[in-house]
């Protein structure tokens, strides 16, 4: 296949489907060949999924996980975007806060779990706090670098038309940095989804992460474990695809190379 040729319509679906089918086959036969008693085959995972859907607990778990992500991610965006803008805009803020942020940033939110439990006890708040931590730093970093990457030409045009510094921030710097901020938000949403599952395995007793750990602990139901894992993957993908739709909005599309 010529890599420059535009793939035919059927090829767009055929090859990915083939890859998925091969993966399932490999999984299926590995289970048979190794004669494992623990790890489930794709068919038993499918049955487990059907069982979860029948029992209706699944929707509550999905809802709980999504709610924790929404609150934690939302708070991170609400605090992180203004902070990032300030970091990029005022050199003093950058100078003062950057060392602290750079030390906190590489700490995995997982390492915060004991601290989160001390702060908030076992429960929703601890899980939401972990999601917040995971989402916060990518948002701050992207917003700050978004601002410092705004071409001087735009700021100068803003000054030339008589805008005050606050107006320049609102009408020039923010819209100019928005595509980069959106990239940061998208990364943060992915991290938030990773973190909520980890948090739910320890800090709460609902949600998809809890479903994974509970299925293992109560009767070693590895078919349910893998079913929950697959669901986590699919919902994560759906969140990412949903978020990418924002990149198509006309006032930010210039920053995303969608142009033909």
């Amino acid at each position, binding site marked *: 296949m010529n890599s420059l040729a535009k793939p035919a319509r059927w090829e767009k679906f055929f090859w990915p489907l083939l890859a998925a089918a091969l993966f399932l086959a490999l999984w299926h036969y590995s289970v048979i060949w190794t004669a494992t008693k623990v790890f489930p085959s794709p068919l038993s995972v499918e049955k487990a999924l059907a069982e979860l859907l029948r029992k209706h607990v699944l929707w509550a778990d999905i809802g709980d996980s999504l709610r924790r992500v929404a609150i934690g991610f939302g708070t991170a965006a609400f605090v992180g975007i203004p902070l990032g803008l300030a970091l990029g805009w005022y050199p003093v803020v950058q100078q003062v806060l950057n060392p602290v942020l750079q030390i906190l940033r590489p700490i995995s939110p997982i390492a915060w779990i004991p601290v989160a439990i001390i702060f908030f006890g076992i429960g929703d708040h601890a899980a939401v706090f972990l999601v917040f931590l995971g989402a916060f730093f990518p948002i701050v970093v992207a917003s700050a670098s978004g601002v410092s990457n705004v*071409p001087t*030409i*735009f700021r*100068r*045009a803003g*000054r*030339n*038309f*008589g805008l005050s510094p606050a107006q320049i921030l609102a*009408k*020039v710097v923010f*819209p*100019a940095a*928005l595509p980069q901020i959106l990239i940061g938000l998208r990364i943060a949403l992915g991290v938030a989804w990773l973190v909520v599952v980890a948090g739910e395995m320890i800090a709460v007793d609902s949600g998809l992460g809890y479903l994974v750990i509970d299925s293992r602990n109560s009767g070693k139901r590895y078919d349910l474990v893998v079913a929950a894992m697959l669901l986590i993957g699919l919902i994560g993908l759906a969140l990412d695809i949903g978020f990418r739709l924002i990149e198509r909005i*006309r*006032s*930010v*599309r*210039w*920053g995303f190379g969608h*142009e033909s």
Partner: protein
Amino acid sequence: MGTAASTTTASDVKLRVEHVGMVFDRDGKSVSVLEDINLDVRDGEFICLVGPSGCGKSTLLNVMGGFLSPTSGSVTIDREVVRGPDPRRILVFQERGVFPWLTVEGNIGFGLSKLSATERNERIAHYVQMVRLHGFEHSYPSDLSGGMKQRLQVARALAVNPDILYLDEPFGALDSITRLIMREELLRIWQTERRTIIFVTHDIDEAVQLADRVVVLSSRPAKIQDVLTIDIPQPRNISSARYLEHRDDLLKKIGLAYTV
């Protein structure tokens, strides 16, 4: 008008550059970029600044525009010392000066937030017509050609009703045919609107075709080497003997007469 040049009185002067010098500090060494620049520009005059690349043409333009304050000397407009950028005089950049997150309308209306909605829309409609972008009011810059983007930038500048337009090699990034068309367009606009124009270019033809007077700068540190009055009425026939005479004269002044 031809004789007015020699009898310029103080009242005719729109912009006066007096003993302007500019010294930059680069890696601890001071580099002199402009040296004792003196220039009087009349109201409504079209001035081209030419000179070897890197000589300080843009620096001089930025000093006139108030974006840089000179190390010595002063720039006065209507006998008022220039202390910073001002919407009464707008700088048009070489490229990427329009805001990619705003439509054509949004860009033209950028500096008009103080007007009422009806006034604003009238002004926008007027300048959309003037730069011939009708039908593109709701398009984004990424959908416009290079020439259209520059027309948009000129429209955005004119919309705030400035006395002076500073153009920093505005057609330098365009192909040669578009460049010719843009010169005609700019002349047409200048003849209807009669603003004072200071136009930086490294294109000899552009200077001879457009300017009332061409200011020739020497290589760094830039001094005014010569001021040529082009006393051919517009529109100029660019293959006429007088035109070519002026062109040769200018080439000679720059020291390139027999080398290109």
